[in-house]
Each structure stands twice: as C-alpha cells, then as structure tokens.
C-alpha cells in the first residue's frame, strides 16, 4: 500500500470513527494525590539515564522535575537515601483477569478456542477485576499492563492496557487513550488446537494461509468503508457547495453504509495501525515469515512475544523496528522453545535500535519483573555485552510502554509524564529488592507493611477464618 493512501485512509476512518461512540470507554480518573519530594535517591529514569543522590518531585499526577526546582506548600518529603526510584513497571504480556486465581475451569476466559480467527473478541470482556493477581503485581511495582487473549488462535482478539488500580470494573482500570492490541499467534499452539480437531490450520503453512485470507478480507472491508466514507465526504462537499446536482450515487451510498463486522473492525484497525500487533512467535524463521507477510499487507508488527529464538534475528528485528518481549530463562517446555538461551534479551538489545522487553506471561513473573530483568542483564554482562542497570531498566519500563503505544505518557521519569513511579528499598536488580511505595498518576497505591495501602480483592476477604496467624 502506498503511503499517501495510508494517510488518507487513516484520516477518513478517524472521521468515521467519530460518528460512533467509543465502545467500553475508560472511566479511570486518578484521585488527587499529594505532592511528593523524594530526597537523595538513585534514579533510573527508564529511558537510559541514571541520577545518583538526586531529588525527584511529583505533583498534580505528573513528574515535575529531577534535580532542583520549586515545591508546593504541603509537599510530603520522602527520605530516599540509599533508595532507588524507577518508573512504574509495565508488563506487555499478562493474562491476569482472563486466567485469574483461583484457576478454576469457570475462570478460564483467555482463549476463545472455537475458531482459529476470533479477532472480534476483546480480552477486556473476560477480565475479572477481582483477580488477586493484580494486587500482587502492584506490590511488585507494576503500574500498567496489557491483558491479552491466549495463543490458541491465529488471531486471538484484542488486548487491553490497564492501569494497575484495584477496581470493580475493568473500565475504571483502562489506560485512557491507550490503543488496543491485536493478539496473533504463530506456530505450535493454533495448529495443535485446530489440527487436533481435523480442522484448519493443522500445519505452519496452514497458519500462514489463514492469516493471509483474513488480511485479504480485512483489506476488502477497509476498501468498502473507504468508498463509503469518500461518498459521504463527496455528498457533504456537494451540499456545502450548494450545487443542486449533488451526486445521486453518493447520496445513495451514504444511505447504505457497509455492514459493520467486529472481526474485520479489529483486523482493519491493525492494518491502519490504530491497533498494535502483538505476535506470539517462538522460532526465528517464523518471525521472518511474519515480517514478510506484514510487508505484503502493509501493516506493522509491533512486538514479537516470547521469541525464544529472537537472538538469532536480532539485527532483522532492530532493522524493522520490532520489539521482542521475552523471558529471561524459560525454555524447553515445547520444541519451538528448545533453543532458548539466557542471553536472548541481551542479544536482542544489542543492535542499534534494538527494542528488548522483559514480559511475564505469568502471575508469578509479573510480581518480579525486576528480578527477571536482573537475570537477563547479568547473562548479557557475562557474555561481555556490558549492560548497566540504567539500560536494563528500559526492558521493563520505556520499551514496554513503547510496545503498548503509551510511551508519550508513561514508561520514563520525565517532567510532564504521568507520575507512575516505584520507590525501592535498594538497587532493584536483586532478589532482595522490594518496592516500598508504588505511585500511579502521583497517587500512592501501595506501601510495604501498610495495611491501608495493601489492596485485597473481594475474593480474598474472609478466607481461612480461624487459621492461626
């Protein structure tokens, strides 16, 4: 697709989108927080910078300044001597809420494994906000995360980015203005799930054929809407020009918009770049196939998830501006994960423009992304790659925010950005590191050993009554 057309298409659709109310909009609004001055901290900004023994001031929900500046009357001062501060951690791959604790069958809401293409489903409609995993992740310093559908399907549906604020609804957790993600999956999982039912796809070539068929339908759908929107525009223009011979054909078309299709809404959104593509893919060769397919249909792969073999194509990923959201040390649980090495993240980080991310895909891992990043950092250093903490912290902050399309608002400590920050008891790259305080939009949402700032889900209330503490 030529670029000018892309721009035009985006413009027209944004016009059309205005005509429809946003579905399931965010109702999140940060309560007022008190201004806080952290004194004398070691600050990892999340975008590669480090400050030693430096002050940080947050107020009105935003980072105000690092170093020196004015503070408001009534500012709370926090002695951060020997403490470290990082941006709030961000997990680009979580199934909290859709595969919640307790993991009973009736809670299994992450894979609509009834057809290989289910781009029409939205993970947020499965999110159970009472999953105790959210508060555990908060205690681990996680302030935002993307909840994704599982990988049973080629197109698993839309992911949603949430602020990690305890709530009775996902709407009031939704990160305002964050784009949706589209979960796609390569390899073993889709072909196993459907091949096992003697249904397509049962092979990797079947996977690719089905992706392409879906994209072709999405292109057609997009063209139908483009034509319709063009007609609407033409008719409006004609009316404005007051030329009484306004195109009858345009008027007719205006009266018969294409029928909306939820599946193709999502896919065309991905083609336009309004929805960011998150592609579950393990093997290097499959990731390269996917990059070619993206070129064929004119869309961008934002992030490869899991990418156990991403280190084999680190240069290609960097050249294409694609992030790799990876584990520190998982391997061997299936054959497409057989070549996992602990230096994967560091090697993806190595080329200029490399975008490495540590993701969890786990209700345990999301609680200690800092430790996962530490493991990856030390493996890189042992291989001679020289990765300091201020670089490694990007893997769980700025790069993750970039992958989710929210890096202009969070993911790093810069003035004007959301005051999503974590105060650590020490250097966060350690098994002994713990968040002391976690702020979201300048509001303290968690404090260690403070029961009034240790949220519990409804599910946890009143359990094990009578057990001796």
């Amino acid at each position, binding site marked *: 697709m030529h670029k000018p057309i892309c721009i035009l298409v985006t413009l027209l659709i944004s016009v059309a989108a205005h005509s429809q109310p946003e579905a399931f909009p965010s109702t999140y609004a940060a309560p007022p927080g008190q201004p806080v001055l952290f004194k004398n901290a070691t600050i990892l900004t999340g975008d590669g910078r480090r400050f030693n023994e430096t002050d940080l001031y947050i107020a009105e929900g935003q980072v105000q300044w690092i170093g020196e500046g004015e503070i408001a009357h009534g500012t709370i001062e926090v002695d951060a001597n020997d403490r470290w501060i990082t941006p709030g951690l961000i997990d680009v791959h979580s199934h909290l809420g859709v595969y919640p604790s307790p993991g009973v069958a009736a809670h299994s809401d992450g894979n609509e494994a009834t057809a290989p293409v289910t781009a029409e489903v939205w993970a947020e409609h499965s999110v159970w906000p009472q999953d105790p995993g959210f508060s555990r992740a908060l205690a681990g310093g996680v302030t935002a995360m993307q909840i994704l559908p599982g990988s049973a399907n080629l197109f698993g549906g839309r992911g949603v980015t949430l602020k990690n604020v305890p709530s009775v609804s996902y709407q009031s957790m939704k990160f305002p203005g964050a784009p949706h993600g589209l979960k796609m999956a390569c390899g073993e999982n889709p072909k196993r799930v459907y091949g096992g039912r003697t249904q397509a796809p049962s092979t990797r070539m079947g996977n690719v054929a089905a992706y392409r068929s879906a994209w072709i339908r999405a292109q057609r759908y997009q063209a139908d809407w483009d034509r319709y929107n063009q007609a609407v525009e033409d008719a409006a223009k004609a009316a404005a020009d007051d030329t009484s011979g306004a195109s009858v054909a345009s008027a007719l078309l205006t009266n018969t918009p294409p029928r909306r299709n939820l599946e193709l809404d999502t896919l065309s959104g991905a083609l336009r770049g309004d929805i960011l593509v998150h592609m579950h893919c393990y093997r290097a060769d499959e990731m390269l196939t996917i990059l070619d397919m993206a070129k064929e249909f004119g869309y961008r792969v934002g992030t490869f998830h899991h990418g156990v073999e991403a280190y*084999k194509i680190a240069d290609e990923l960097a050249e294409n501006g694609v992030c790799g959201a990876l584990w520190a*040390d998982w391997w061997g649980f299936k054959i497409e994960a057989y070549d996992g090495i602990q230096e994967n993240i560091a090697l993806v980080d190595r080329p200029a423009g490399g975008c490495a991310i540590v993701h969890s895909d786990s209700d345990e891992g999301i609680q200690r992304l800092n430790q996962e990043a530490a493991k990856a950092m*030390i493996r890189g250093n042992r291989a001679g790659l020289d990765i300091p903490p201020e670089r490694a912290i990007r893997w769980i902050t700025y790069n993750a925010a970039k992958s989710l399309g929210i890096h202009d608002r969070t993911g790093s400590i810069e003035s004007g950005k959301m005051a999503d920050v974590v105060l650590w008891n020490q250097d966060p790259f350690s098994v*002994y590191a713990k968040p002391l305080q976690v702020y979201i939009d300048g509001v303290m949402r968690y404090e260690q050993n403070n029961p009034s700032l240790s949220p519990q889900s409804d599910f946890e209330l009143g359990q094990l009554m009578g057990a*001796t503490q």
Partner: protein
Amino acid sequence: MNTKRLLLALFGSLLLAIPGHAASLLITNGIVFTGDEAPSSQLDILIEDGLIEAVASDMSAVEADRVIDAAGRPVTPTLFAGITAAGLSEIGMVYEAVDSRLNELYTGLMHPEFDVRKAYNPLSSVVPVTRIEGYGYTLLAAAFGDRTISGQGSLVRFDGGFNSFEGNTTIFVNVDGYSGNKIGGSRAAHWMLLETAFSSLATKKGSGLWLTHNEHPLINKTGRETLKNTRENGIFVFRANRASDILQALAFSQKHQLKAIISGGQEAWVVREALAASGTPVVINALDNLPGSFDGLGARLDNATLLHAAGVTLLFTSGETHNARKLRQVAGSAVANGLPYEVALSAMTSLPAEIFGGKPRMILPGLRADLVIWSGDPLDVTSAADQVIIDGKLDPMTSRQTELLKRYLPTETGLGRAYINP
C-alpha cells in the same frame, strides 16, 4: 567484574576440560559455606582424588596439581535442583521424549512399582543445562497426576552417570483436591484407597485389590509388594497444599509408620505446630503467594519464615524441570521474606541429601568434592556459577545453550552460523 575470567568461563571451557582429572586441586580464598547452618568464612579447600582432603584457613603452602584462587567469591556444595523430571523430560510437550508419568494404558489407581529411574537419561540436554548453573542433584519424581500413587524415584546426581541414583526409594502420593476430583470426585477417595491398600499389607493376601470394578484396579501384586518393601525404608512424599490435607497425611503416616514429607504445603504455615511436632519436612515453592486453587487459599510469601520459626524443616522446589535452575531465586525470595540466609542455603545444599538419604553434601574432609564457585551471592539473581566441580573435577561449563550462544554471539558470520561450530 572480571571480564577475562568470564570470557574464559564461556569460551575457554575446552582448556579446562582436558586436565579435568587432576589428582589434586586447591581452592584458595573462598568464602566457604560448608552446608550446615553456620555462616560462611574465608577458607581454602584441598581436594585429592575426588574427595575433600582438608578445609583450613590458609593452605597456600600446600602443593597441588592445580590451584584456583576463588578471590573472595562464595563456595558452596553443589545445589539441590528440587523435585524434577530432569533426564526424564527432554521437551515438555514432546510426549515421546517425556517419561515421568504413566498414561492411560495403565489404569490402576496406585502404581508405586512405576520406577522412573528406569527411564533416566543422563545425556539429556537438561542435565548439563542445570548442572552448569550450580546444581549437583535432584529428586527424580514420578510426576504427580491423577493417581493416588504415581510411582517412585530417588535422588540422582548430575555427574553424567547412567546409574547415579542415591538415597531411599521415594514414593509419590497425591492427596490434593484436583487429583481427588479426578479419581473419585472427592479427596476423601484418596484416603479410602490408601487405607484399603495399606491395611492389606498386614494380611497375607491382597486378593481382590486388583480386581475392582470399572477396569480401575486399585493396585496390582507388584505394587503391593513395592509398598510392603518401601514401608520401612522408603520415603512417602504427599502432594498436599490445604491445611486439612496436610493433617490427614500426618495422621495416616503416623498410623502406618511411614516416613512422610509434604510437597506443596501452601497452607503448611496453618498447621506448622503439627508439622514440627511430627518432625515432617515440607517442600515448598516459596514464590507461591496466590490462591491458584481452593487448596491454596492461604498461600503466602512468608510461609517459609513461619514454618522455620515453628521448627519445621524446609526444602524448596520450583515445580520446573527445564528451568529448575530458577530454584536459587526461589530460596532467595524466601530470604527476602524473612527466612534466615543460612537456613535457606542449607536447604539448597546439604539438607535435601540428608532427608532423602543421599550422600552428604557438605564441604568437610572425607566427603565427595561436589562444589561450586559463585560469582557472588548464590541466592541472588545477579550471580551465577563460575565453576562447578564434581568429584573434584572441573566441569567444562558447557551445555547445548552455551553452544548456541557461541554460535550467535559473534557479529561476523562468514558462510553462516551453521559453520560456527564450537
């Protein structure tokens, strides 16, 4: 960090491997954790013919075939990898390469005679991947599943031997809610079946036990013989997380005079006094802090701390096989949540051997020289094993994964990566 040393560890492994049979090895200036609960101290270790000859504060005058200056780095016995299927499971979902469980062909509810040691493959890539991270042994397990008794295993040492098993035969018993639901709709079914089987051991014949309805024999003759033989010297690992299940396991073990160990133990802290009183060790994953099931509503991060304070003996397992190397992080997390450091390190080194009847894993004269020189704190995620030593020999520190790294680390590829062969 000493880059040269690290590069040597990565790429100089062949050089190290050749003189691996050196008769004597002296490690100087190690911060040595001997394996009991005493704090580490700076010591030299002299090794001769695979055995620890001496541990003393300054042996620099001693002549040895080879000397390694630990330069203040920690030295510990090799670590325990937890309860795993290492050498039984090459790839988790490639089922023909997984031998840790009995599938549907055998429909009995108890198969204590199913011995996973017969399937152990020391040449599995999992073994060196785990060993070079500082792990010297594991408890080889018949995978917990739906059956009441899933099988037997024992300790195995990661020395590459085909028959490197140690310690008591260990029987794996499931009494949790999940498997209870599968076998009879209730966890009480487990106790009903166990009681039936164990009561029959006192009688001469077990007739009828293997002739039950629905093609689900309870136990066959060989299985019954196995129980008879292991009742006295075997170890029974009960998979249980809920407090009430743990108490049932303790009562059953007491009645039938079994040496019991609890595995899982998410709510063990609730019944810690009973566990301490009966002297029953608990194997936990110290990262468990979510109510993953209704058996574990009480899972909490300070489980280890509470158990230890009550006098319960603790071990760790991660539930992982391929990533069993993660267990250091599990133990470190327990320390971060209040468990005394030396207690955690002891649980990672000497204690599992002691509990499961293996050879001692301590750094003391006369014992086998299985130890690790660490780059830093062995329980922290920022350290790694610099050198593993088994039987006094330097491990080459290579695995399938180090070979992949060597292939993909260079930026110059020539004819292609396939031509970069270590």
